[in-house]
């Protein structure tokens, strides 16, 4: 059974701080995606990483896929209150386009 472990589960920081969220597994994934979900809404896709060692940047967000394609990290620079939300990682496996989701990191950025 594939599992994706996210850490930390909860993170509360002040505006302007930096943070990193981790997503780890013992399984190899063909790709890994990061989503952000606001309360009462569905997850919104932020990025997909496919190649081991790949780094993608989305404004103040930096995503990295581990060399062995088993883990990933999300780094946010100078966090803002608008970054508040639940961050989910999801690994793709198999041939049917299914995803395994981590349980998420709930981020709160206080002004």
């Amino acid at each position, binding site marked *: 059974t594939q599992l994706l472990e996210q850490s930390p589960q909860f993170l509360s920081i002040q505006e302007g701080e930096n943070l990193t969220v981790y997503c780890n597994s013992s399984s190899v994934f*063909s*790709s890994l*995606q990061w*989503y952000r979900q606001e309360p*009462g*809404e*569905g*997850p*919104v*896709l932020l990025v*997909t990483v496919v190649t081991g060692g790949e780094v993608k940047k989305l404004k103040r967000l930096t995503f990295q896929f581990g060399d062995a394609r088993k883990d990933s990290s999300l780094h946010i620079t100078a966090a803002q209150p608008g970054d508040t939300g639940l961050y*989910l990682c*999801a690994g*793709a496996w198999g*041939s*049917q*386009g*299914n*995803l395994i*989701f*981590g*349980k*998420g990191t709930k981020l709160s950025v206080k002004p």
Partner: protein
Amino acid sequence: DVKVTQSSRYLVKRTGEKVFLECVQDMDHENMFWYRQDPGLGLRLIYFSYDVKMKEKGDIPEGYSVSREKKERFSLILESASTNQTSMYLCASSLDRQLDEQYFGPGTRLTVT
């Protein structure tokens, strides 16, 4: 932009009622998915479909069924709602099996009393 819509944002039903949750996507995606999301348990896959009239069980199909009569529409059916089916239900779609990026609807918060 991909748009996935769900028939209701909030729904309150009584135990034993038959409940229909509908999902429509407008981007000609092949794959569609139904998840439920509960605190501490994350997203769990109920059913998915990769073609019209095709369906596959996910991790927690018990108590649910699905219908996909048209490519753009995927319905989740609770045959006899129970209180342990109170949850947030999320529908998602993806282009095809090779491209697994999923696009989610806004969710339906279902309460069964």
